[in-house]
């Protein structure tokens, strides 16, 4: 009995301790629901948002559904309950995000989508899309491939993220779009997911090199860390310089690899700018200004030719 009372007191004390002081008062509240906070691009976005929010005096709160669409829906509802002034959503799943975004709309809270857009049927409930479209990133990579290989026949290996994830599917679709435009006769000989993991990409590529001892001309890893894993596998198997590896993101080590000639190219995604633009858009909405429906952060195709201009933008 006494022990239990003690436990109650302990719980209360513990909870009171772990509750950090709530954010200081600012002019308006922005509620951000990420896709999954465990990704470098999110860190860059958060940096951009924080820097810009400090200028505008906005309060930004972040939520992480860890790539679970149901949790994301719940968190959007939490944002509505918090009576945020603007909600920014990085959709885990475009279709599943429609219903909760509609709720925010009905509650009169403006919604911005960030980096991953909502499905077309949910577009009418959002103010704007801020970010770089994953399909554009894929398109930029596809273009780089076309520049390098022209209309020669080439065999491509795709190293993907998690099966079915929007970014993965769209980036590949974007690349294919660029090929189709240029009538490039490239063939995807393998398309397997490696779960955004460098180590899994390394293993997968090692096995793929065993399976296709000759014939792989290009690899598109839909994320730079995986591209680096692929390069490690290529080096270990002694195929250095024979295969063109492309990534997406613009991570520091990818830029380094492009400089060294290990990697053929990447689509630099300016996540920091995405964060900045989102806060600016939120501010404009809050001030009652009209904003554009699509605020795109530029995607820069980076190869060895232009790496020097861009290297300080890598993150």
């Amino acid at each position, binding site marked *: 009995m006494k022990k239990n009372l003690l436990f109650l007191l302990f719980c209360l004390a513990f909870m009171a301790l772990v509750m950090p002081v709530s954010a200081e008062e600012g002019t308006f509240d922005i509620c951000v629901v*990420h896709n999954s906070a465990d990704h470098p691009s999110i860190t860059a976005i958060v940096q951009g948002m924080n820097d810009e929010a400090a200028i505008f005096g906005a309060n930004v709160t972040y939520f992480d559904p860890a790539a679970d669409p149901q949790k994301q829906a719940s968190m959007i509802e939490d944002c509505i309950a918090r009576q945020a002034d603007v909600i920014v959503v990085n959709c885990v799943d475009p279709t599943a995000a429609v219903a909760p975004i509609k709720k925010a709309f009905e509650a009169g809270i403006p919604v911005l989508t960030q980096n991953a857009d909502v499905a077309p049927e949910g577009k009418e409930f959002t103010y704007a899309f801020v970010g770089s479209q994953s399909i554009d990133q894929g398109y930029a990579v596809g273009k780089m491939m076309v520049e390098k290989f022209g209309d020669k026949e080439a065999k491509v290996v795709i190293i993907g993220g*998690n099966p079915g994830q929007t970014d993965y599917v769209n980036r590949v679709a974007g690349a294919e779009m660029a090929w189709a435009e240029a009538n490039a006769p490239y063939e995807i000989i393998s398309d397997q997911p490696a779960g955004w993991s460098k180590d899994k990409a390394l293993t997968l590529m090692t096995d793929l090199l065993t399976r296709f001892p000759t014939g792989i001309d290009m690899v598109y890893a839909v994320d730079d860390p995986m591209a680096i894993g692929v390069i490690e596998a290529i080096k270990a198997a002694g195929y250095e310089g024979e295969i063109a590896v492309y990534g997406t993101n613009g991570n520091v080590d990818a830029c380094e690899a492009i400089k060294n000639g290990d990697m053929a190219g990447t689509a630099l995604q300016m996540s920091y700018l995405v964060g900045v633009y989102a806060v600016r858009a939120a501010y404009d909405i809050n001030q009652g200004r009209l904003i554009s429906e699509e605020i795109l952060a530029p995607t820069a195709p980076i190869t060895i030719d232009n790496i020097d201009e861009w290297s300080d933008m890598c993150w």
Partner: protein
Amino acid sequence: MIRKIFHFILQQNIIILFLSLFIVFGIFKGDLFLNGINLHNIARQISFDIPLALALTTVLIVGGIDLSIGSVLSMSAALTMGIQPTGTYFAVLIALLFGILIGFLNGILITKGKVVPFITTLGTMTLVKGIMLTYTKQLSIAGKDESFTFWGDGSIGVVPTPIIVVLIVALILYIVLKYTKFGRNLYAIGGNPESAYIAGIDVEKNKVFAFMISGFLAALSGVLLASRLNSSTTQLGLDSTNWAIAAAIMGGASMAGGRGKVFGTVIGVASLGILINGMNLIGVFTYYQIGIRALILIIVVAVDAVTATRIRENLQLQAYGKRD
């Protein structure tokens, strides 16, 4: 009477946790936390985790564990959306039957194949995930029937529909476990399978039934989720299994079998739901949220284990005729 209630509450660590969460968030963020919209939101959010935690409670009672519920959830959500054009409720029926089928498969493998539940369901987890990815072609499926969203996204009055559905199911499970012979058999099997067998209980059959219930509940959660999001995605149910286990154990179930309470489990899920909601309202950064949830889980599990040992020792002392 009041003293009795007070005493009862203090007996249950989970209720203490629940209350203290309520008090802390009420004090710190009362305006946001205790308003009608937020409570409505919490009720809806937890209603998808309750069936999962109940599924685990049922199998934990017979001394098993079911890791396949996350995959079953996403597959039944996919079926609900995928077959919807043929008939909305026909699709729901198929989805629920699929859950029961996987539960049956688990049960048969465990009883006839003599494989421990942890391993069997780890295998079916991978298997069902593969089936789900094949069936959905790794794509999201959008719902066609707008009226179906009533079950997951609608409300009756101010109360969200899914919580009503789920609480009715919980009530039925409560009655089955507590007042039927089948329910008592489950506890007996989990407590001591050999003496249950000697007492004439068909251990294998009952175990299979328990796993079928588990599969059904996981599928139910999937159906409700499909209705809530009006779509199914391959990302559903990713790490829900771990926290469902945690909620069931916090609610009084035991990995050793023979213990588990429907009421406790529901409170367990509610506590975790309130914790997450409250931290979101306060604006605790996500990295710390994970850590805080982990600390609470460890503390609850540890305290529960210590009290359980105490109770056992007290019982032994009483058996020797001594008073504590």
